[in-house]
């Protein structure tokens, strides 16, 4: 409340203090964050612990689980595969998706709604729904279990995502800029490379980073299509966690911490380039005081 009715000209203040309802909301947020923090922290502590039967903390601390996990789960290979697959998916999705987003933003043609619907469906359907038929088809053409198959499967949600993010970005750019470039004698390729791409760069970066984060976290499709040599880190983590007892819980947690570190790095990079609240709408910041 205070954020709205406070008189203008006052400096920014700390968290807006309000009545009971405000404190209730902050208490719930605090409860959620404390539990979340404890959840993450218990995984980290366990990954460094020697034995933890009872008590608040493990009996001793060691970092040997990390080297164990690194060797046992072949994490070096898994990380390489994860990076390769993710980067290829991002590159392909951008190369194919950005021009498609441009065409959809600039032209109004018969059948446009059908194309839009076709691009929206993979985003709306749960991955398992199309993942199982897709895996069946990929097994039939002997692509399942290869890197190509995993990249193809991950491209299905990534490509429409790029198109849907890029279309509003292109719509923001005045078409007159392109006409002007043409008047000055630029060819189509030059218009694209020297006018459009520099103007679209923030959108391309945002779309690319979001696809990167999503592909690293995409479990279902990779799980259905990959085999031992083409699985990403998250699938490897699931396989280890789903067969408890065979592997030490601490080694699994060590792998989980490595995954967490990877995601945290990606999140920080993403937040550097993308304002999270601008994903769906152009945000109008509160008017300057």
């Amino acid at each position, binding site marked *: 409340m205070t*954020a*709205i009715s406070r008189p203008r000209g006052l400096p*920014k203040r*700390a*968290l*807006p203090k309000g009545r009971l309802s405000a404190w209730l*909301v902050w208490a*719930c*947020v605090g409860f959620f*964050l404390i539990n*979340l923090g404890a*959840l*993450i922290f218990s*995984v980290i502590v366990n990954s460094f612990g020697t034995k933890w039967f009872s008590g*608040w903390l493990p009996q001793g601390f060691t970092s040997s689980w990390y080297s164990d996990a690194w060797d046992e789960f072949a994490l070096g290979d898994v990380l390489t595969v994860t990076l390769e697959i993710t980067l290829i998916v991002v590159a392909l999705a951008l190369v*194919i998706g950005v*021009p*498609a987003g*441009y*065409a959809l933003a600039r*032209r109004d*043609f018969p059948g*446009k709604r059908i194309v839009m619907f*076709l*691009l929206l469906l*993979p985003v*709306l*359907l*749960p991955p*398992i*729904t*199309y993942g*199982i*038929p*897709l895996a*069946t*088809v990929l097994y039939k053409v002997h692509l399942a279990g290869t890197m190509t198959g995993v990249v193809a499967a991950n*491209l*299905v949600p990534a*490509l429409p995502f790029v198109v849907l993010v890029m279309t509003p970005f292109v719509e923001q750019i005045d078409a007159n800029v392109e006409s002007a470039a043409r008047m000055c004698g630029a060819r189509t390729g030059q218009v694209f490379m020297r006018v459009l791409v520099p103007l679209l760069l923030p959108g391309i970066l945002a779309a690319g980073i979001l696809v990167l*984060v999503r592909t690293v*976290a995409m*479990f*279902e499709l990779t799980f259905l299509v990959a085999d031992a040599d083409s699985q990403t880190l*998250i699938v490897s*983590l*699931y396989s280890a*966690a*789903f067969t408890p007892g065979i592997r030490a819980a601490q080694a699994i947690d060590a792998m*989980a911490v490595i995954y*967490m570190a990877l*995601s945290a790095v990606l*999140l920080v990079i993403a937040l550097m380039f993308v304002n*999270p609240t*601008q994903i*769906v*709408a152009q*945000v*109008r910041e*509160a008017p300057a005081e």
Partner: protein
Amino acid sequence: MAVEAPARPEAPAPRRSGLRHRLAERGVDRVLLLLVPAVLVIGLLFLYPMLYGVGLSLQPKNGGGPFGNYADFFKDSYQRGTVWKTLRLALPAALINVGASVPIAYRLRGRFRGRRVLTALLVLPVTLGTVLVADGLLRYLGPKGWFNRVLLDLHIVDEPVRLIYNYWGVLLSLLITGFPFAFLLVLSYMSGIDPTLERAAATLGAGPWQRMRRVVLPLLAPGLATTFVLAFVLAFSVFPSANLVGEPAGETRVMAIAAYQAAFEKYDYSMASTIAVLMGVFELLVISVTLLLRGRLYTGPASGGKGS
């Protein structure tokens, strides 16, 4: 020349340039070639497998007519129950995530110190992923985990609360992974509402609750419907958490698990496709109902000011 536009763009034209001209008038020109690779990829990797799956589901392994698999699915109570079990997890999860996001986003939209940090903290679990959250829940909520230890030491409970390997574990994991996503969307819809509208309402004598009820919520409602749809899609495909923190043979045997078991444990791809198709149908049903209701809501500009 092209006063009477032809009914079909491919209609024969007297001259080639005339045809091209008239096509261009309807928006069909070489720019559309840019769309071809994307449509090809989606057609090949999404549409063809989906249609293939539908076709496969109509050719049951055990015979019994084209709809044999569908009949089998609904006759077998173990399979039929998965629909209810999935909805029982996904609907509350999506509703709670959207519902909890509204007051928090409302508090967070002003400018104040620490806003960015708090937003980042609330969004952080997006990167954790279902597998990691499931693993963490097993440690944290287990009988010897910190959560039960605190409750026991404070004498709130006499014996450890059972929150994993059942319905609650899966619901909690869905809340943790789904909330940041719903929150982000609600926050950005909330930021799209011009704050001057609320100030105007306050000037006219509306109290805080009236402003929320009569100004903010109606403007936010379409966005909430969209967020609900996307949160529901996320929650509907619970697979890793239902297996890891749930009871995959009983209480949390969701449709995704049934489909996976049919495909990769029984090698009955026909039945697996049937369940996958049914999953899509049930999910699209909920989405269509939500979008229909959304169509009845106000969807105009959410900005005030001088004739904007």
